[in-house]
């Protein structure tokens, strides 16, 4: 067995390793398997460590793209006003207008398609570094709808698992085995190879405009006016999402951040109320947090020239909406000051 142990660590001399393994034929099959498996695991561990290190380096070195925006939100921004949410945050709140009116710096951390888990995770990263003055959380219909996809999408936060312990509880919601999978240094960067490569170039800067996190939509809606009965839209709600939403509010209140929950405009006329929206409003009421509802704003309702699609305003709509949000913030700030 002494011989066996010697050649395991003798990685530079592959022929010696081979000869060493040949001597193992004298050892029984189980020991043979254990020793070779052990040697393979060490080799795999070394490869994982080095390749994972390369990914880590280039991930955090990105200068454009979606991953860069997430990284900037978690690790770099020190804006006074932060906007959280999914696509309806990212594509509707233009920080420039908010900055101009309020005199406060602003950054939009919203990310297309991301559920409440994502923005709660980002908030954890932000609060670990500094305390913003104001947070706007965009709340939308279906926000608490049960969906496996919402958990799968937590993969975006995997690179922060080792560097941001405060985000671990939310990342671990992804699957029961996530903790085990994250023992690998490469796994957190799964499916990110090309994104990271592109993020280290200027290609993304040419692909889409990024105004302090705001990504304008330039299309114009071509759809007839319609009425939707939201109360008919029945679905199962996810208690994890509701708990994350509650924790988001609680953490902001605990840090003395002025939190505004905002429902941005919709194109369609709504009859009744969406289940998630009802829950969100009730929770806001319980915790005495301002809930500002633009979903029935007459300026936007059925006004196709302000919309890119039925749930996202375009660049013109965003200008008006962002100014409205800024005016509301300003009046709230002024009334608080008085």
């Amino acid at each position, binding site marked *: 067995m002494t011989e066996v142990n010697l050649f395991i660590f003798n990685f530079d001399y*592959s022929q010696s*390793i081979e000869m060493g393994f040949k001597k193992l034929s004298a050892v029984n099959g189980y020991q043979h398997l254990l020793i*070779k498996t052990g040697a*393979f695991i060490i080799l795999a561990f070394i490869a*994982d460590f080095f390749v994972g290190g390369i990914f880590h380096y280039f991930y955090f070195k990105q200068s454009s793209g979606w991953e860069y925006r997430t990284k900037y939100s978690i690790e770099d921004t020190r804006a006074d006003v932060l906007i959280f949410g999914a696509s309806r945050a990212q594509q509707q709140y233009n920080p420039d207008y908010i900055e101009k009116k309020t005199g406060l710096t602003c950054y939009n951390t919203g990310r297309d398609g991301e559920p409440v888990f994502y923005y709660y995770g980002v908030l954890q990263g932000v609060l670990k570094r500094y305390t913003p003055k104001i947070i706007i959380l965009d709340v939308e219909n279906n926000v608490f709808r049960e969906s496996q996809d919402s958990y799968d999408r937590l993969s975006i936060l995997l690179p922060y698992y080792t560097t941001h312990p405060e985000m671990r509880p939310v990342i671990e919601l992804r699957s029961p085995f996530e903790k085990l999978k994250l023992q690998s240094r*490469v796994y957190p*960067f*799964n*499916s990110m190879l*090309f994104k990271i490569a592109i993020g280290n170039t200027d290609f993304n800067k040419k692909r889409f405009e990024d105004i302090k996190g705001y990504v304008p939509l330039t299309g114009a809606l071509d759809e007839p006016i319609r009425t939707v009965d939201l109360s008919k839209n029945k679905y199962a709600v996810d208690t994890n999402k509701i708990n994350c939403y509650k924790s988001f509010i609680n953490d902001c209140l605990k840090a003395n951040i002025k939190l505004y929950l905002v429902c941005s405009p919709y194109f369609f006329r709504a009859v009744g109320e969406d289940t998630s929206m009802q829950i969100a409003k009730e929770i806001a009421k319980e915790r005495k947090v301002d809930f500002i509802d633009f979903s029935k704003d007459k300026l936007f309702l059925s006004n196709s020239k302000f919309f890119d699609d039925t749930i996202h305003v375009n660049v013109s709509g965003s200008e008006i909406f962002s100014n409205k949000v800024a005016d509301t913030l300003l009046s709230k700030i002024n009334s608080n000051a008085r």
Partner: protein
Amino acid sequence: MIFTSLNFALFFLIVAVINYLLPVKYRYIWLLGASIYFYMFTSPIYILVAASIVLLTYYGGIEIEKQGDKKESFRLYVFTIIANVAFLIFFKYTNFFTSIVFDTINFSRQKLLHAGPPIANSLLVNIAAPLGISYLTFQAIGYLIEIKRGNHPAEKKLGHLATFLLFFPKIIAGPVERAHHFLPQISETKKFEYSNVSTGLKLLVWGLFKKLVVADRLSIYVNAVLGNADHHNGLTLITGTIFYVFQMYADFSGYTDMALGLAKILGFDLVQNFNRPLFAKSVTEFWRKWHISLSTWFADYFYNPIAVAKRDWGSWGIVYAFFLTFVVLGFWHGANWTFIVFGALQGLALTIEFFTRKQRKYIRKKIPSLANSIAGILFTVGYFGFSLIFFRSTSLKEAFIIIKRIFTARGGAIYIENPSIILFSIASIVFFMLVEFKKEYLDHLFTFSDNKNWLIRNCYYCMLLLIILIAGVFDGGEFIYFQF
């Protein structure tokens, strides 16, 4: 519990370790218990169906062999075969045939449901087919036929037969095992062998690569395109169809590699199911390399008896036999006209190839062999891809929409929602095909996977694991063939 899940990894680890700790004569009982648990994990109630098939096949086999009276033996044989087929038809095809009957008398399924719950419920079976029912019944039928033909003795131990039919690595999507190949392995005294575990693990890693890196990655684009054909142009649909060929092959052969690997670790050899079919130079050759265990099953138990019965018809008897075989083979995949058309298209290609074999041989002599090979491969893969449009579609209407749009929806750029997905997809196909190409044409020159040098061999497998971690889709779905 799919092979790519960590739940399964834990289950298999426990099964394998305990298997080798147990005395040899009790191992099959342990494996049978594990197989039953595996089967019940998804839908416990269906174990009753599986148990019924096992018992029917067991007693049927013994009685067929025991009967001195040839007529009685034949009656029993026909009864057990029909009973097995009945299980398959009841669970898989009842609604299909009911719909045909009522469509014929001008009752659509929709009208039937509107006729009121009592009538609808009494005529349409709203239950899912038990897992692997097609594979289970086909193995049982093959076993009974071999006994009747006198090629294999009836298995006297119920536990052995049950282990053969329910063995968990192959129960869901094959390969379709033969009794004479598998049953003797149960009785063999199997010592733990390092080489079995090593070979099995290598197959597992390669199967995982095919499933997670190639098939599940391609499925993202394929589902987005072929699932929404109305919104895409011809170029995009052609790209989606080409991707689907690779997805299908990687998914199914990946599953098979894993099944073979798992069985090998437990000390069992399963039959090969694929032999690099995407390098076939004709559709006839393709079916000798694709889903081999099923096509040879059909050849032995369906095609040959028909061809022999119709030998008086000459060439037309052969054509009749393989056309019918492929229509049934297509229908075996599922209760839908799309599968019948898929099978018929294979039959059609084989018919054309059969009647043009002399002309093709003449042409082959006239053109360089490389050009002939490339043209043959491109035609075969293209034709298979075309037939897969029917295979994947949920209705003939959907398939015809895709085909129509391929030829008519011109203009516009190719659909690329996320460049990263396209780049990963192309890279995965290139890597996968390079490995297949090397195995097909250059295996004698060098090998990484079986290199004699420990370091080179293991660096290759480390690289595969890293690629799986970097490019694998860990939120992907089930294997395509699980539904059959």
